[in-house]
């Protein structure tokens, strides 16, 4: 469960860009998984893959729902990160920098519009194919392609503005 919760949490974090929201979302996903667990059919393949697929669907659904009612924006990204980091025992400088970089990228992703963000996250962070993304988001593959393209351009612009690249 530990490894799995980490993966779900990370996916949720990528979409929300907010730790608290990501934890809530993870919790929601686990609850919904609990309800759908009986639908699992071993013939559909590995349990871990099945779980991840369900989780991805749930997170995207939830993400869409929240995007429609934008009450919680991913503004507090990294707020708690400083406290957490202070606790860490083995804290070499390089690790800190890489972590900061990760956070900057998440912050940049959070600045993209929801449709673009979803496509870029699924393609370039989760490594899904165009077709998989199209199925997941229920949009045509052509739209996926153009959104990924626009998303990447936008991301590059945002990162440049943030002086990351």
């Amino acid at each position: 469960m530990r490894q799995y919760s980490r993966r779900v949490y990370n996916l949720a974090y990528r979409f929300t860009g907010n730790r608290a929201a990501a934890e809530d979302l993870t919790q929601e996903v686990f609850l919904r998984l609990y309800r759908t667990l009986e639908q699992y059919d071993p013939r559909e393949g590995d349990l871990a893959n099945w779980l991840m697929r369900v989780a991805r669907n749930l997170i995207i659904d939830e993400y869409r729902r929240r995007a429609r009612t934008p009450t919680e924006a991913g503004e507090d990204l990294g707020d708690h990160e400083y406290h957490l980091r202070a606790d860490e025992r083995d804290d070499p400088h390089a690790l800190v920098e890489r972590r900061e970089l990760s956070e900057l990228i998440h912050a940049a992703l959070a600045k993209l519009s929801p449709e673009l963000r979803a496509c870029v996250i699924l393609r370039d962070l989760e490594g899904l194919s165009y077709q998989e993304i199209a199925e997941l988001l229920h949009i045509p593959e052509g739209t996926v392609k153009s959104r990924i393209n626009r998303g990447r351009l936008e991301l590059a612009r945002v990162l440049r503005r943030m002086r990351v690249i």
Partner: protein
Amino acid sequence: MMDCRQFEHLISEYLDGTLSEERAEAFVAHLFSCAACRALLDDVQAALALCRSVEEVAPSPDLDARLRHVLRGAAMSCGAFGELIPNYFDGVLTADEYHLFEAHARVCSNCRQALEDVAAVLRLLNDVGPVALPESLNERLLKAVRLLDRDLSRSWLWRLRRRWAAWRLGWSGPPRSLPLPQWAMAMVLCAATFGLVFLNFSGGGGGVSIRPAIARLFDRAAAVSMEGERMVEHVERWRAQVSAFLRTFRSDRERSEGAPKERRSSP
């Protein structure tokens, strides 16, 4: 020749290696001729490289414990959930219980429904205000009380008359202080108070009890508050009970004290 706009559209496909040979050539040709587009491509490539380098974020250390707790709540039996409902509405669930409760409500639609039903009932009960009194009820109550008043003064007058007659016949000495008419009311009140106190302590020995009768009366009145008729009927019955009690009380006392006149007339 490809323009910058077209170039922009094809960046992703170029990076993903899905461009046709012909378009790829045009793309590269534009790339060599346009410094701005070269910079743009570099930026996008750098951004993607950064995305690939993104590290996993560590969730807060207690996430797993929380998840386990939530799942435990989801697995809680509906019976156990039902037992927690009253405490939930009284706000006395412990934090631990609350999280279990919440998790179960989220996965179990039956229990969620039950919870909503209870909440709806509680809301309704909260909204129930006092029922309007029937219009003439107050007047009828006043009338009934006046009748009671009259009964009491009548009996007092009857006593007074009897004592007056006794005095005139010389059966006892004249009372030191003559009962003046304006005392009548005060004495009636004293008698009534004494009667009630006596009743309280006599604990059913007297046979008539007024306190429970009053309580019953008001209970009944509340229950049938729309029925003024019945209310008045109860008041009248109550009045009759009080009169009957006062009569028995008086005769009892006269019997037990033997010579009430002596005591009355001495200070």
